């Protein structure tokens, strides 16, 4: 009342409109912070190898990154509520291992249960949900530190995964099980389409669903969310479960892509580092409450492009990881410079 009446109403409204337009422009710049980096990468890739800028190569990149991408969606949700889950790596390996083990005959290191592949996929989802539920209960109800709980869980899951198949690799998986990771729909890999649907669906959910908004509220200020009547514990546990289920789907995609589940899928590649790197490069804050799916997706695409360019270039195999890590750090710095204070925390 007091502040407004000092200026005329029209004047104030003009100022407010101008400000909110500027605010919108700034937030657009932040969301698109990685676009220049992606363009530079595409230019570099084209120069390095003419095979880079082809439809088949891009479809290949799409297939490679979709498993990572779906897992990044899971981790991003968990980061948004102010948590962190290292054990997504273990879920990514264990869930498809259990499912494959139930389908494969004893001679090929399976259980001999000969489970129907569709039921096996259901089992895979249930395994993911169960791991998420255990994590969520320990962290939320047991009030344990999420870092330590999920670190311990990672080791347990990797051990169980090794133990079930005694370190062996499961081959000859049914086609229905492999389809998600292996099949193509026209020119496009099915996994890429599914990953894109998951990204878009999660993005819409976060923006237009009350539970999605509650995730931001809980991550931004847990006590304020509680005081506003949001069921904070339920949201947090729900997000841990969702994150783990998404990691299990990611693992299914990877298993389909390579038509096998190794006894070390997930933790051998150290996929959790790529997951965190993609989310953080994409502007999802490690402190919770900040980030979105546009950013997370561009983080995933960036990692995929870098990996692909390194594969196509003449960088020695022994040096590929060093260059990979260096590029990640550089991208992080660049995202920070373009996106300002808010990004890459």
């Amino acid at each position, binding site marked *: *009342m007091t502040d407004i009446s000092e200026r005329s109403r029209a004047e104030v409204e003009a100022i407010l409109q101008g*400000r909110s337009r500027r605010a919108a422009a700034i937030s657009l710049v932040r969301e698109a912070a990685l676009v220049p980096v992606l363009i530079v990468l595409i230019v570099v890739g084209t120069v390095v190898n003419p095979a880079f800028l082809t439809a088949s190569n891009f479809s290949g990149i799409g297939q490679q990154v979709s498993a990572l991408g779906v897992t990044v969606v899971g981790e991003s949700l968990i980061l948004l509520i102010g948590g962190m889950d290292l054990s997504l790596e273990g879920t990514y390996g264990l869930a498809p291992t259990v499912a494959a083990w139930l389908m494969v005959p004893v001679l090929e290191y399976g259980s001999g249960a000969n489970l129907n592949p569709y039921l096996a996929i259901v089992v895979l989802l249930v395994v993911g949900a169960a791991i998420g539920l255990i994590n969520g209960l320990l962290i939320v109800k047991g009030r344990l530190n999420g870092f330590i709980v999920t670190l311990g869980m990672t080791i347990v899951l990797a051990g169980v995964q090794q133990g079930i198949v005694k370190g062996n690799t499961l081959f000859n998986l049914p086609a229905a099980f492999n389809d998600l990771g292996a099949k193509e729909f026209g020119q496009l890999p099915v996994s890429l389409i599914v990953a894109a649907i998951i990204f878009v669906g999660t993005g819409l959910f976060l923006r237009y669903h009350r539970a999605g908004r509650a995730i931001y509220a809980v991550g931004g200020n847990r006590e304020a969310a509680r*005081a506003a009547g949001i069921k904070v514990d339920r949201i947090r546990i729900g997000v841990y479960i969702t994150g783990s289920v998404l990691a299990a789907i990611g693992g299914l995609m990877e298993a389909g892509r390579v038509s096998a589940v190794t006894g070390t899928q997930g933790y051998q590649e150290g996929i959790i580092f790529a997951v965190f790197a993609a989310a953080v490069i994409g502007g999802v804050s490690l402190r919770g409450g900040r980030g979105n799916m546009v950013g997370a997706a561009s983080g995933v695409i960036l990692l995929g492009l870098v990996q692909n360019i390194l594969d196509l270039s003449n960088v020695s195999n022994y040096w590929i990881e060093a260059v990979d890590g260096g590029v990640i750090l550089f991208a992080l710095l660049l995202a920070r410079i373009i996106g300002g204070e808010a990004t890459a925390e």
Partner: protein
Amino acid sequence: MTEAARSAASAAGATPAVEATGIFKQFGSTQALRGVDLTLQPGRCLGLVGRNGAGKSTLVSILSGIYPADAGTVRFDGRPAPPLGAVGEWRRRIATVFQHSMVVPELTVAENVFLGSHPGPRGLVDWRAMREQARQIMADWGFPLDVNQPCARLSVEQRQIVEIARALAAGTRCLLLDEPTAALERAAVTRLFERVRQLTDSGVAVLYISHHLEEVFEICQDAAVIRDGELVLTAKVKDLSKERTVSAMVGAQTATLAPAGPASHSAGALPGEPSAPADACLQIEHLRAASPQGPVRDVSLEIAPGERVGVTGLLSAGVTTLARVVAGAAPYESGTVAIDGRPLPSGRRDRALKAGVGYIPEDRQAEGFVALLGVAENGTMTIVDWLARRLGWFRPRARSAAMAPLARTLSIVSAGLGQPVGELSGGNQQKVTVARSIARRPRLIVAIAPTRGVDVASKSLLLAELAAVTERSGAGLLLATDELSDLDICHRVVVLVRGERFAEFGAPPFDREALIAATEGLASGDGGPPAPTDTDERGTA
């Protein structure tokens, strides 16, 4: 410069301890400071007052070397200020005790006193010398603190002592106190004033920032009023009246706001006597609850629709606990809490919300809003289930539409309803919290210290709005506060002592002295004005 000259003359020509001239500072599109000249004389205490968002905090930050000024100079003892990054240099010249404690709870008192400047050669810590020097400072100034205990165990008052001791240890001759009494009990405030006088007597310059005019009038020799980034009034306290100070703070709006006493709102606004207990909107029976903020022991209380009931008491008397229990934000052990006759489960904020309890939490930074989210989203957080359509999906526009009328009634000033609440001024943040609590048209509003940290003018607006909401909607109000002037909007006041109902006061205006005596547990609580008892030498202007 004339102001500075006048002050300088009064201090017998001494070099000013701090001299800021022509300070400008802009944040984004907000001009926070427009040419501020401020002078602190050694041995004098200057009170700086102003409404929320007037520029007090910005000025403090610039004087403590946290932000650079866009234009203007700061000089200490006549010499130019050190470069911005030289933190140690700044600390030797000026020390700031912030609203929020800056001690490290895990470290001992001695370590905190010497934080960042441990005595000892080549970066090694000489523990014995450190403890000895810290003990010496405490002894010199008569601070009763054991330097070996960890700060986690200290009270707010004791932490402040640690921060003051830190300033003294660095040899600082200039101290900024940023709302030091906000979290102190009354007796602790008296002791703090004693310490401030001790400091000024020994020649330290003090800048004292407060929302409470009485405090400024009690311990400051000079006063400065800041409004919209400009110093609009600088004078000796003995030449000032309270009315003149308030009108300087408020500016052109004097005519409508100067009376500022919330009493003026409650005068004509009393509805009829509370209705029969049968349709009480809140019924508490034999409530018991334990809490680190003070226990509640066997309290019964009823609030009728439209009735405003104040609850007050000392810091750990259970006032906050009682309010939090009713809001569902804290659990209870036994007894019943019922809204419209339906009992509330213990510690379920979500169920209390659905039952019709709006909640204005004590610490708005911690519980009042989500800083990263917008005004509309925060204000409508309690009614998402109303806004959502099938399966929980909703349009963001529905939020703004629901928020717009609330923002208008509460006159929330923001750059659009999408602006993150963290970017708003303190008073507007509190209004967003109020909007959130009334959006669901509650049957009962629980407000804990709603005016804490809010300036004089916004305070009366806020209280008037709370009163108006209960008038309009017939909601009850449970107002838990230690700010006695807030109670003027209440129909009756219940005083808790050590968790038990001690006294009840029937109708406004409430006798301030009697209320204070009751909170100290000094009078018989039969509703009548208790016998005047001389409790302690607190100064109430």
